[in-house]
């Protein structure tokens, strides 16, 4: 009897989800029924927003992807019980995941859904799994290997991914270096000219999203001069790839005569770029100074901290942020749950800095960047803060949670993953 009852509930739950996925208004009602945690999961949010922990302690939760039925897939950088992807389901409609499973024998960062496929990356490869209409996997044991043999030399090894929905997948291949010096991060070591890393890394590569076993020869270097991109997303309004670059480190350590601790903590900017095929963001030759609002010649390449780059090859950022905050995810919000100003704007998950020491660290929050006509307005604001759990972060290890991934749920909720404690946050709008 009990079994029959729970089966009925399950069937009811399933049909409710299906109903809500098809009817716009009911998703809004459904989300209003979900109560945020009393303390908003420890987050500070704008008025009208609430948050809950959809899951906790699941491992090093890097990027996340959510199906149109609300099933959450989380990529782990380190295997837990031999598995690298966690699947979470809210079976009773309270907004929290009751059901947890895992699969995939590779650690990594990238995960994305496009059409009926779930894509996920290790630090060298990209795989894909076919999804069933209800958001499960057809065969979690045997994914298709789409891309293989990508460079992983320890540093900036994450392969973040984004798809354009037109059959292409874009993969970040981070530079295995800070500033392309002959000896990495070593004072007095010159910048290599030209930087040989750029042939196989330090950019975004474009591959066929459908073809098996592609490697460098099959893909195309779509954009270059990008030191490391963790956050990237396809903007459907502009039909354009936007990326967030992690700017270079250690200006003071390497050039103490040119940069004091304060200058080193505040330069260079973390930057967003609107890419086109052939875009060049200028790493390692230049960096972007957030105060001067200029591209500055890197000291490894003859710069003195003031010399402005006049090279027309290097693109300006779409918008710049304070230094070293480590933008680990970018998401264009296309939902209807949040107030109108958020629609088609960008959320950026800042993992939080380490390279501002001895000054206090910054970041450890999710920012919102308003867009108009497919371009940032020039302003940005902190959207969700409090992940670190402490007022001032002096040592990075002291931060309790660190935002790493972003995803939009089918009802328009914003999900944030934390790769420190393995928390999945769900942020909802409950105001009017």
């Amino acid at each position, binding site marked *: 009897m009990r079994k029959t009852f729970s089966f009925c509930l399950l069937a009811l739950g399933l049909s409710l989800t299906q109903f809500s996925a098809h009817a716009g208004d009911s998703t809004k009602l459904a989300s209003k029924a979900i109560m945020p945690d009393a303390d908003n999961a420890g987050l500070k949010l704008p008025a009208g927003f609430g948050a809950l922990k959809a899951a906790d302690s699941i491992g090093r939760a890097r990027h996340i992807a959510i199906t149109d039925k609300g099933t959450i897939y989380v990529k782990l950088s380190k295997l837990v019980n031999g598995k690298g992807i966690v699947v979470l389901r809210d079976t009773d409609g309270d907004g929290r995941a009751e059901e947890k499973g895992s699969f995939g024998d590779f650690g990594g960062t990238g995960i994305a859904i496009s059409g009926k496929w779930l894509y996920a990356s290790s630090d060298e490869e990209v795989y894909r799994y076919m999804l069933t209409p209800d958001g499960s996997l057809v065969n979690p044991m045997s994914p298709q290997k789409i891309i293989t043999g990508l460079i992983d030399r320890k540093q900036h090894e994450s392969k973040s991914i984004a798809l354009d929905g037109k059959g292409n997948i874009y993969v970040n291949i981070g530079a295995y270096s800070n500033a392309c010096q002959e000896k990495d991060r*070593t004072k007095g070591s010159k910048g290599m000219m030209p930087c040989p890393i750029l042939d196989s890394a330090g950019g975004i590569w474009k591959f066929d999203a459908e073809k098996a076993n592609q490697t460098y020869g099959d893909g195309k270097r779509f954009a270059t001069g990008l030191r490391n991109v963790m956050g990237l997303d396809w903007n459907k309004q502009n039909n354009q790839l936007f990326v967030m670059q992690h700017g270079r480190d250690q200006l003071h*350590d390497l050039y103490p005569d040119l940069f004091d601790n304060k200058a080193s903590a505040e330069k260079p900017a973390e930057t967003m770029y609107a890419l086109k095929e052939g875009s060049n963001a200028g790493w390692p030759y230049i960096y972007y100074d957030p105060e001067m609002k200029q591209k500055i010649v890197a000291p490894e390449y003859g710069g003195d901290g003031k010399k402005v780059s006049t090279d027309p090859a290097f693109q300006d950022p779409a918008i710049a942020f304070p230094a070293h905050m480590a933008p680990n995810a970018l998401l264009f919000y296309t939902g209807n749950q949040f107030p109108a100003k958020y629609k088609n704007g960008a959320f950026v998950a800042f993992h939080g800095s380490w390279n501002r020491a001895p000054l206090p660290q910054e970041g450890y929050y999710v920012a919102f960047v308003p867009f108009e006509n497919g371009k940032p307005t020039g302003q940005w604001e902190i959207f969700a803060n409090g992940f670190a759990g402490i007022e001032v972060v002096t040592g*990075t*290890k002291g931060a309790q949670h660190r935002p790493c991934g972003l995803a939009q749920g089918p009802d328009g909720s914003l999900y944030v993953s934390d790769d420190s404690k393995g928390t999945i946050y769900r942020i909802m709008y409950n105001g009017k």
Partner: protein
Amino acid sequence: MEKKIMLLMGSLCFGLNAFSQSSKPISKSVIDNGKLVYATRCLACHQVDGGGVPHLNAPLDGASTVLGADKAKLIRIVLKGYSDRVEIDGEFYSNNMAPHSDLKDQQIADVLTYIRNTWTNKASAVSAAEVKAVRAKLK
């Protein structure tokens, strides 16, 4: 009877050990000088709390290599830098560490003594002679 001797030897050893540690207290000037070197060469990556940066820069506080008896290994890391892709106390760290062979033997000794005796760390001092010996072997 044998047990008693063992016990006696054990406590004797313990006594000697305690004596040898207390006989060489680490001077304030060594710690101050080590702290200065730490601030200019190490703090940016290993952080003010010695906690490092998760998955990027290895922690020093509580680290087995920092606290270990193999001081030559520690000295070699400072002199040669570190880019090995190995697990350190169960974790991988992505960033490369630059060599600091331009520091003087005494500076390296002091900074190592400092990191072995700061935060929760407690271990014996490193001497300039020990640094000199390791440096000679590397040449």
